[in-house]
């Protein structure tokens, strides 16, 4: 009896250690990265540099927040980068016709929802594997916008350029708008995933879809809504990207955003097989990717090799996180 109790205690300790590791492991990596950053750039921790990193991270950051929901639900979205290009290109066309920033933002979000719901339809109602469905839409969306943009990049009309630029350059209380937006989206994402029924359903479906269905959850509906949400985040990302660049090249805009998104989610400790999502982890994840990029530049590593570094980071992050919770 005594022995059994001792065993029980051991088990609990191990459980909580594994839990801690998967929950906060990324913070350890984050601190390590900061030191590496300081080694190459003495002003790495200056307010200026931090803000630059955050502004750069925000465009992909909102994508990573949306993708966290999809991965937690056991889904995947390879089409996000193409969605960003499609939405941003169309957004520029609209803005040039009717130069209203709120209208453009609204349109981009709504258009993202529409593109996402196509994925949702394919995956939830036609039971296509998420990888295949979103690989197909990735190709399709990119193809449409490239064709539409065959005559040159989508550029914001010079007459209305400045007011749009403000989104990227303006700030409130010394913090850039873009950082505000990213932080608010991340905070809202965390709230939704952890404190609402929707978030619980997303997690339950990713963990055991059958049990979720038998508990009365509308699995198809929730999956569709997750894709609508990731699409909406692609819309927001497209909006931020347009503000930063003011010119959208159809073939390149948002290219491989999904890669950075997945890397961020993996680094942040969400389970790649679903059932465990960490929004804060994804927030730090995308920030760390941005830091790595900046460090690579400071260390004069050839830019073509950044993909190699990201690939290695994804592999390492997944290997580390799946050790303690291997089932």
């Amino acid at each position: 009896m005594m022995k059994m109790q001792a065993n029980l205690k051991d088990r609990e300790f191990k459980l909580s250690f594994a839990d801690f590791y998967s929950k906060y492991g990324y913070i350890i990596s984050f601190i390590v990265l900061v030191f590496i950053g300081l080694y190459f750039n003495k002003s790495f921790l200056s307010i200026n540099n931090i803000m630059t990193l955050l502004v750069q991270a925000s465009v992909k950051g909102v994508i990573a927040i949306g993708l966290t929901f999809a991965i937690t639900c056991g889904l995947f979205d390879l089409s996000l980068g193409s969605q960003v290009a499609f939405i941003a290109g169309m957004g520029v066309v609209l803005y040039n016709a009717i130069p209203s920033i709120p209208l453009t933002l609204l349109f981009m979000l709504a258009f993202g929802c529409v593109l996402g719901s196509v994925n949702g339809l394919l995956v939830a109602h036609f039971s296509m594997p998420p990888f295949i469905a979103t690989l197909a839409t990735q190709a399709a969306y990119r193809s449409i916008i490239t064709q539409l943009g065959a005559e040159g990049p989508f550029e914001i009309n010079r007459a209305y350029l400045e007011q749009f630029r403000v989104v990227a350059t303006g700030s409130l209380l010394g913090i850039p708008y873009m950082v505000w937006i990213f932080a608010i989206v991340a905070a809202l994402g965390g709230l939704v995933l952890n404190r609402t029924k929707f978030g619980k359903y997303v997690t339950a479906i990713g963990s055991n879809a059958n049990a979720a269905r038998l508990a009365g959850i509308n699995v198809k509906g929730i999956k569709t809504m997750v894709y609508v949400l990731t699409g909406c985040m692609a819309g927001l990302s497209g909006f931020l990207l347009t503000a930063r660049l003011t010119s959208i090249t159809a073939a390149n805009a948002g290219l491989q955003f999904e890669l950075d998104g997945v890397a961020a989610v993996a680094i942040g400790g969400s389970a790649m097989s679903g059932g465990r999502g960490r929004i804060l982890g994804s927030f730090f994840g995308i920030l760390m990717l941005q830091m790595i990029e900046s460090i690579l530049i400071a260390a004069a590593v050839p830019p073509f090799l950044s993909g190699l570094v990201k690939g290695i980071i994804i592999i390492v992050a997944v290997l580390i996180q799946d050790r303690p919770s291997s089932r």
Partner: protein
Amino acid sequence: MIVEMKKISRIFGSAYALKDVDFTVGSADGSGEIHALLGENGAGKSTLMNILGGVLPPTSGDIFVDGNKVEITSVKRAKELGIRFVHQELSMFNHLRVYENMFIGEELTKSGLLDQNKMIQMAEETLTNLGININPRTVVGELDMPSKQMIEIARAVRTKSKLIILDEPTSSLTNKEIQALFSIMRNLKEQGVNLIFISHKLPEIMEICEKYTVLRDGSVVGTGLIKDVDENMITDMLVGRKIYRGKVEKPKVPHNPCLQVKDFTLEPYFRNISFELNRGEVLVLTGLRGDGRAQLAEALFGVTKVTSGQMLKDGKPVNLKSIKSIIDSGIGMIQRNRKERSIIPDMSIIDNLSIANYVAKHKKPLINFKEEEERFRKNQAITNIKAANPLNPITSLSGGNQQKVIFSRWLEIDRDIYIMDNPTQGVDVGAKQEIYNIINDLAKKGKSMIVFSEEYPEIYQIADRVLVLYDGSIVAELSRDELSENKVMYYATGSSIRKAANK
């Protein structure tokens, strides 16, 4: 061929699954026989056949084939001896063709390449010989269940098997398909092949078999010729004379229906299922494996759709559109096979408990941790969940405590009617008794329950009334006064049907 198993024992952990079992099939003169192997769930049938089929080694005992002692160390060795086990879950490659399946692992080649023509021709010969009308070039995935079963048997025949073990081959077949299977079995017998036929359905056994062996609790309790016995005698052998300690008294439940199920049909699983459930009643539906209960339980909760039938709750039709609509009408369900169908392994104990509440009742925009913890504490007091920290993952709990969390999940949303499919599966004895108490207390509070169970001790603990299913139909209704294990077994094996047919 004659196969003799002598003094076979098999121990799992510290428990005997088989003890000194003698089992003989076939005869020395080379004529075939069809031998029925009977026993309740857990009596040791599968263990014995797994030993014969080379899947499991025996702990002790010897096997003789035609008088020579043999060691059946692997499935491959069993095949070499001419023994073939056709499992209930068919092991077919759906994307391959019939002949490819029949030659899998034993392909014929000609100068290094597959000799397709030869294989197709040989497969065709075997199929024709058995009277099976299937083109060997057909892709197996396109065939229906019975055809696949026939292919599996044909595969065994092709390899010149002398003893074929058929594990509940009829459980998913219609009557017509069963007759087709039987004619193939008779055909094989004529050709000197021995068949061991495992089935719960006594009418089938009476029809097709000439010998029988009954196992109970890992020992042989009867063996001989079918013509010397009748259904009652076999039922007695299956059940034995068990005595149950702790007599349970339950007052009569007055007739006051809160749920009416009318003509529920989903072929080939069940048909014309009609019954009433009274307020405050525990109604048990029982039977033996393959009786359609699993599908009926699912259909009652909208997990699968029936082809016809309706359900009335308090006189009003229930919308069978979705699980949610049935929950909303006031019905909850505790599923069988907890790990696959109830547990959300990555979520905490609290979330696992609260999930049905989120679906059915939660209205506020946000979830309040305090409230959910109080919800857990309240239910912990009712169902006696032993948990160190409710924020731990549910998988940190023992099976019994996990099941109590699942009970709480549904009790929390306070439905009028609960469907419980095998509610004590994978739960230890102590927790089982606690679950019976929970069920009986619920009935006292006026909740009504439909419990699917196949363990008689369990049925005895909770049932006010029992419906027995056989082959997808309700064949008997037993009140608590009439309840006995022999009666349940008599009806569950379909004996009453055969009686009626003989008259």
